[in-house]
Structures are given as C-alpha cells and as structure tokens.
C-alpha cells in the first residue's frame, strides 16, 4: 500500500467522517436507545400495570375498540406482550362522502390509542421509546423525506469512513490491544481505533443494513430498471390479500384471541400484528401477521380469516429471494429477533459505535490543536468543529435527560403532552447549544456533561424516592427489565461524571514544537496514522 494512497484515504476518512459526524452521533444515540424501545415504552408509562396475560389483554382491547370504533373501516392492532405496556391500536374511520376534498387529514392521535392490560386507555400521553426509534431515521421538526435523505447520505459517508478507516489503519492486528494513556492525540487515536475495531462487524453491518432499509428511496434505480410500475415489485415483495368490500349488514366479529391462537399454530410462531377490515360487518376479514421477533425475517407470514366464521381465506405466499434478503437485512439491523442476551450485545455494540463517532470528532480537534501555529487564534473551521462537538456530543444527551424529566414531571392532563415532552428535549438541547457557544470549551464540556450526570442521578433518585410505583416497587416485584433502565442510567451518569472530572483536571498539552524541544521523541512513539 503506497504512502500516497494511504494519505488520500486518510483525507477521505477525515472528511467523510467529519462533515456529517454530528448527524451520525445523534443517529447512533437514538438508535442505540431504540434497542430498548418496548422497555422504554413501559418505563415512560410507569403506572401502567404489567401485561401478564397477553391474550386477555387482547380481548380487553377488542372490547374497547368495539365500543370506541364499532363501524370503522379498519382496525390495526399490535399484539400485546409481556414486554409492552399494552395494546397499541389504531383505526381508520369510514370515509365520509360529505367531507370536502383536500380536507386536512385527521390527526393520528384521534384515531389511535394505547390500551393497558385491564382494558383502559393509558392516561399518560408520551412517545416513549418509540420516539428514539423514529428519531433515528425520521429526525424531528423536518419533513420525513428530507430527514431520510440526510440520514441516508450520512450513512453512506459513514460506510466510506469505515472502509477507509480499515484501509488506513496500519498494524490493525499488531496494535489490537494498544491503549496509550495520557498521551493526548495518541490516546484519543487509540480510543477511537479501539471503539471502531472491537465492534467492526457490528459497525459495518449496521451501516450497510441501514442503507438497505432506506434503499427504496436512496437507490430505486435497479427496481425502476426492471419495473415500469414499481407497485408490481412491491406486490411481489409484500403480497396483499386484496380489498374488502363492505356488505352493509351487521355480523359479530369473532374473538380475536382465537384467531391469534390459530395463527400461531399454523405459522409456528407468535403473532405480532392484527388487521381487521370492516369489523362488525358480515364481510369482515381478520389478517394475523407473524411477529418480527419470531425470526430473522421481519416481514412475517400472514394469514387471512373470514372475520365472522373463522375460515381461512388467504395465506401469504412463501417469500422469494428478494423478500427474504430484504427482510433479513432489516431484521439483523433492528435485532428484534434477539433474546435478552442478544439485545444487550446489540446495545453494547451501539454504545461502541456512539463512542467511535464521538471520539473521532474529538480526535479531530485534539490533533489540530497540537498542530496549531498559534494556539490562541485557531482558524475558524477549528472553532466550528470544537463548538459543534460540545453542542452535539454533550448537548444531545443533556436534551435526552431532560426528555426523561419531562416524562416524569409534566402533568398527565396536559394537552399534547407527548409532543410537549419532545419539545422539552429540544429546548434543553437548544440551551446546551447556547452554552456551548458562550462558555469556553473546557467549561462547556464540564458543565454540560456534569449537568447531564446530575440530571440522570437525580432522575434515578426520583424514581426511587418519589415516584409510585417506582424503582423500589419494580425491584420488589422482580420487574428487572424496568429496574435495569434506572441501572443503566446510573452507569451512564457515572461515566459522564467521570469524563466531566477528567475534563476539569485536564490541561492542554503544549503544541508539538514545544514538546519536541523538551523530550527526544522516539520514532516508535509516532502515531500509527499519518
């Protein structure tokens, strides 16, 4: 490998990693949190009773929907499990022939509900863990299309950064266990290398599969080359059972839990999703879909039943190569198939990826600072990167901590409570941005990291001391899933506090030229990357 090739790839690595690195950081933070989506959905609705009997919960949900939306065009029900706070259900009302065309679409919250295990709608309006899941590809406060393009481009730059990173990493095996401490840029480099190399299979997989999940938008051309009408392609990949025509005379809908039991038997795995078309009508149809947790392939097999008689009317055809590949890629990205151990491994890898991106961004400033000809007047680009680092790497976690606090403190009866919680996240993040611009960098890091640590410590204390049911009740009841959320937040708080203390103790190293005069630097001490 020639020196100029390595140098060119080093330039590419730096730029492709740096330009959208801050976007990648928040994608990684949100995506890593999203592995605990269901758990956070429960944790952010602490008064919701645990679902002990999913089938019973489903029956309660059906009774609720029959009271609330009896003549709807369709119901969509996410099957409750012991991991979820209850049954997520939404419906489409019958189209109103008198409504003027182009009327503003009904708000999603008017036609969706979360029904707890006892059959009552959950009082606390919150986005829960679903916020992090959607945020990591839809972002927020921007049209979804723009957000996904930004995320897509950032992911492609991430892929380039990973590949070039492998190429430029000299002695990747020899220096596998290297960690030089208290050596400024070289320590940051070793840390960045460690976070990257130790989780390399995951980082490559998550980036590539992430691109694949957005491929319909990012790279539709291969589909367009073969299909003049892309709906034909989607029909072959996601086969549908066809439309249901309403007959107009009433007939009672069968017990959904019976359909689910039958579906589980026929499909050989748990059911994740139920669609009911024209409930209460004689032409009602129930489709059950196999859960994405059942296997690597996320787009599960489906069976359609006559809603009144219970007869099987349609079954999705066995998947072809395209569907299996696409679904498996999304499956391995989302990791829904995993048991607890696999879920934890995914989570730890996600943290590794977050540290990789963060250490890379900081490494850029550490390296440039050591090379500055005049440390008191760095170039404008340096200022931008330094301040953005603080604003995003310290600011976004601060925003997330405030998001959790808003979840605990905002009054239950508040209108649009879920949106208000998210607004708190962004207001706190905005405050962090202001601090990162106004304070000197060292103080910006200290205050924001320390502030986040204090906020998280206080949150766990609140969960234990004030909130009922709280952390104590969860531990006593053996609900470790929820108790561990506070446990993980404690660990994160401790880690952030440690970093804040290290920043406080840190004194900038004198620039390279001064150090070279002070010590004879050995060639063996040189960094492994130019």
């Amino acid at each position, binding site marked *: 490998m020639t020196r100029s090739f390595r140098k060119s790839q080093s330039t590419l690595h730096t730029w492709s990693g740096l330009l959208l690195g801050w976007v990648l950081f928040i994608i990684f933070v949100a995506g890593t949190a999203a592995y605990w989506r269901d758990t956070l959905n429960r944790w952010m609705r602490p008064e919701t009773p645990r679902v002990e009997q999913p089938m019973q919960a489903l029956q309660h949900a059906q009774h609720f929907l029959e009271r609330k939306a009896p003549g709807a065009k369709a119901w969509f029900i996410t099957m409750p499990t012991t991991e979820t706070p209850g049954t997520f259900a939404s419906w489409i009302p019958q189209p109103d022939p008198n409504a003027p065309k182009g009327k503003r679409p009904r708000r999603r919250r008017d036609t969706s509900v979360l029904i707890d295990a006892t059959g009552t709608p959950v009082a606390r309006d919150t986005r829960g863990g679903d916020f992090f899941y959607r945020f990591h590809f839809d972002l927020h406060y921007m049209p979804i299309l723009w957000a996904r393009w930004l995320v897509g481009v950032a992911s492609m730059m991430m892929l380039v950064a990973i590949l070039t990173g492998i190429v430029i990493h000299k*002695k990747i095996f*020899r*220096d*596998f*266990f*290297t*960690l*030089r*401490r208290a050596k400024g840029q*070289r320590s940051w480099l070793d840390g960045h290398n*460690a976070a990257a190399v*130790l*989780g*390399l*299979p*995951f980082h490559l997989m998550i980036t590539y599969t992430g691109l694949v999940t957005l491929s319909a938008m990012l790279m539709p051309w291969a589909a367009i080359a073969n299909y003049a009408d892309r709906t034909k392609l989607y029909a072959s990949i996601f086969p549908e059972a066809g439309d249901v025509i309403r007959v107009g005379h009433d007939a009672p809908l069968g017990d959904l839990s019976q359909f689910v039991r039958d579906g589980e038997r026929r499909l050989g795995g748990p059911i994740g999703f139920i669609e009911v078309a024209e409930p209460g009508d004689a032409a009602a149809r129930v489709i059950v879909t196999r859960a994405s947790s059942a*296997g*690597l392939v996320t787009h599960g097999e489906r069976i359609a039943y006559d809603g009144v008689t219970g007869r099987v009317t349609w079954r999705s055809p066995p998947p072809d190569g395209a569907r299996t590949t696409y679904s498996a890629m999304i499956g*391995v990205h989302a990791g829904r*198939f*995993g*048991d607890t*151990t*696999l879920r934890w*491994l*995914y989570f*730890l*890898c996600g943290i*590794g990826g977050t540290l990789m991106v963060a250490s890379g961004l900081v490494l850029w400033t550490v390296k440039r600072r050591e090379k500055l000809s005049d440390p008191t007047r760095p170039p404008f680009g340096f200022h931008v990167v330094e301040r953005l680092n603080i604003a995003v790497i310290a600011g976004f976690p601060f925003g997330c901590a405030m998001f959790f606090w808003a979840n605990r403190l905002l009054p239950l009866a508040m209108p649009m409570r879920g949106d208000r919680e998210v607004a708190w996240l962004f207001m706190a993040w905005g405050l962090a941005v202001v601090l990162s611009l106004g304070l000197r960098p060292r103080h910006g890091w200290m205050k924001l990291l320390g502030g986040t640590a204090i906020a998280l410590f206080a949150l766990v204390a609140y969960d234990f001391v004030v909130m009922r049911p709280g952390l104590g009740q969860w531990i006593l009841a053996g609900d470790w899933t929820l108790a561990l959320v506070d446990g993980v937040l404690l660990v994160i708080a401790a880690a952030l506090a440690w970093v804040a203390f290290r920043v406080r103790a840190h004194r900038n190293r004198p620039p390279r030229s001064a150090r070279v005069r002070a*010590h*004879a*630097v*050995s*060639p*063996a*001490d040189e960094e*492994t990357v130019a």
Partner: protein
Amino acid sequence: MTAIVAALCALAAFLLFGFATDRHHELRFGHRLTRRHAGWYRATAWAAIAACLLASIGAWGAVFGPVAWVGLIMAGASASFLLLNLVPEGPARRSNHSASKRSTNNRSGAVIPTGTPVCVPGE
C-alpha cells in the same frame, strides 16, 4: 449454560491473543514470550473462537447462533481489551516491569519516566 460457555470461550480467546503480544505479556508476567510459545497461545485462541461458534450454535440454533457468535466475539475482544489495559499491575510486577524497562536496550534512547505506568506502543 451453553451460552455462558460460549461467552467464556470468546473472552479466553482474546485474553490469549492479548497475552501473545510482547507488550502485555511482559507487563503482566515480567518476561517476553518466545516465538514458538506465542504461536501456541494464538493457536489455542483460534481454537477457542471455533469452540465459541459451536457453543453459540448450540445455545441459539443454526440461524441466530452465528449472529450471537459475532456478538460474543466482539464482547470478548472488548472485555479483554479493557481488562488488559485498565486492570492495574500489582506492585511487585510494577517494580519488576520498571527494572526491565531500565535495563532494556531502548532502541532510540528516548527518555521514558520510570515508575509511571506507561504503555509503550508495540513494534
């Protein structure tokens, strides 16, 4: 149970890889390995990685087993990395190490402060 065995195999594999390197072996045991012994360490480490794959398939099945294996490999590598680098050496070993550092023929004559735990980069 098999899952725990798989995890331990992964951890053992990377600890062996780590101790096969001169730097970490010298740091903990006070002397460098011969080429041949380092080769044995690495061979055993590779065997442990293979055992981890078999145990993972045993614990999680043919489809999820390989996925879990990759995850455990990464976890074992990370745990070894942290253990090898962050667990402080004992006082006896530290003086042993400093003694060997003072006596080692330093190729470039660099000034390395003795007594401070410094991880010198590998060759």
